[in-house]
């Protein structure tokens, strides 16, 4: 369970990235965050695992007040939150398997950390994760030889290997072609349903968001301007999220969005 209470986030010289955010996300939800570039979507997601610090307010994840965590605690906390990036963020020169194995590093004894030699057990775990996203056969291929879609699946497997209970995804399909996007989104959906883990995803492709997510959160200029089930999203609401819409639409949409 993730709860934002009056969260504000200001970058350096007064860039207000998040303003007065109140939000509650339950276990097992599939939430899509949409909004214009620069609206604050990435910031929102990154606050959850403390990649960014919030400026004020309180953010509670699974009963833990995230802002109070320190050093080692933060790292321990992050272990159970998976994160997927638009650009996959893999080590391209290493093999697929090595990329997945990396997710076990924080728990290794020092000598293994240094040498990068992993036990058989961990290797099996990593291979299982690869199997879950269907690219087991690529385990020993170097990542830079994979297509974009396959790379995103490696990232997915790496995150699964962490055995997370929350999955954060920052525009995971932005750099994929339509066909591959669909496969990756299917993966997300399956994982979300089979493992009952929450997925919170930033996404630019509105149609895709509507198709896969249970719930849509619209962000504009750092504020949450819509929050509701995806079935209820209309063109007017989208207009409102993306363009600010007309005054009347605003109120209407806001009421609708404020039902949480």
């Amino acid at each position, binding site marked *: 369970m993730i709860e934002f209470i009056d969260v504000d986030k200001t970058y350096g010289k007064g860039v207000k990235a998040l303003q007065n955010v109140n939000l509650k996300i339950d276990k097992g939800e599939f939430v899509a965050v949409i909004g214009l570039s620069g609206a604050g979507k990435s910031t929102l997601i990154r606050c959850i695992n403390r990649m960014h610090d919030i400026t004020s307010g309180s953010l509670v994840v699974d009963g833990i007040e995230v802002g109070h965590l320190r050093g080692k605690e*933060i*790292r321990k906390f992050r*272990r159970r939150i998976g994160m997927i990036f638009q650009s*996959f963020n*893999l*080590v391209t020169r290493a093999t697929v398997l090595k990329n997945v194995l*990396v997710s076990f590093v924080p728990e290794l004894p020092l000598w293994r950390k240094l040498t990068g030699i992993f036990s058989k057990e961990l290797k099996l775990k990593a291979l299982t994760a690869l199997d879950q996203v269907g690219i087991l056969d690529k385990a020993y291929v170097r990542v830079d030889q994979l297509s974009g879609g396959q790379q995103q699946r490696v990232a997915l497997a*790496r995150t699964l290997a962490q055995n997370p209970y929350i999955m954060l995804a920052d525009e995971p399909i932005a750099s994929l072609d339509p066909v591959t996007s669909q496969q990756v989104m299917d993966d997300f959906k399956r994982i979300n349903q089979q493992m009952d883990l929450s997925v919170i995803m930033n996404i630019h492709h509105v149609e895709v968001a509507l198709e896969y997510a249970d719930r849509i959160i619209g962000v504009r200029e750092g504020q949450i301007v819509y929050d509701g089930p995806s079935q209820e999203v209309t063109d007017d609401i989208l207009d409102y999220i993306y363009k600010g819409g007309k005054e009347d639409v605003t109120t209407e949409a806001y009421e609708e969005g404020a039902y949480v």
Partner: protein
Amino acid sequence: MFDKVFPPKEIILPNGKIIMEKRSRTPLTVLIVIVSTYLSVKFTGFEFLVLLQSGDKFFDIVVAMIPPKWEYLPNIWKPLMDTIKMSLLGSVIGSLVAVPAAYLAASNIVESKMVVMIARFVLSVLRTMPTLVTALIATFIFGLGTLAGTVAIFLFTLSYVGKLLYEQIENASMNAFEAMESIGMNRIQAFRYAIFPQVLPNFLSTSMFCFEGNVRYAAILGYVGAGGIGLLLDEGLGWRDYASVGMVLLMLAITVFFIETISEHFRKKLI
């Protein structure tokens, strides 16, 4: 500054829009280069005429080296091996030490500006010292012989590889680093697993390149008593025995060629 002295020129488009064209800096740069060249020529007594007239005398010594004195070969092996050992040892240790040094000097990894500044300053100062001077000082401290040479090579390698490595670290993509942090690694671990694999091939190739250079450089360390084949070179030159010098240089060239070929082979494999 420049733009104040030479204000930008206005260009008016047919549709009435105005754009400022900054004055090209090329003429000024060219002028500076020409003036500096002229001054340098004056300062160093450079005379092209002399080169034309007696440039051929350069080849007097080259000609004297040919053919090289083959009988000299047996004397060369040991110092040559010494030279290789010296450079190998200095390069290996230098490159290894360069990794933590570069880590500390990389501003995208280490957050403390102070640490970065200090690490960089040390690397820079090390780099400014001519190797021959370092070697000479090393002979005073570590005694004459190969140890001093090794120390000099070590210091040079450290500064050279260290600098290039931290530049590469700063240019490396931070994407994977970010992902590692999101997994819950600390910065050193994230560096080890995200950045290090990225810079590894380049690091190895820089180190090998440096090793090649060091073999060449070690050849003159003998001049200051730092051991190796330089002693033979010096002796040959002292006796005006250019045929032996030619032999030494030939062997050195062959060695360098081999090292270059081998390291080229591995570098291609790495990248």
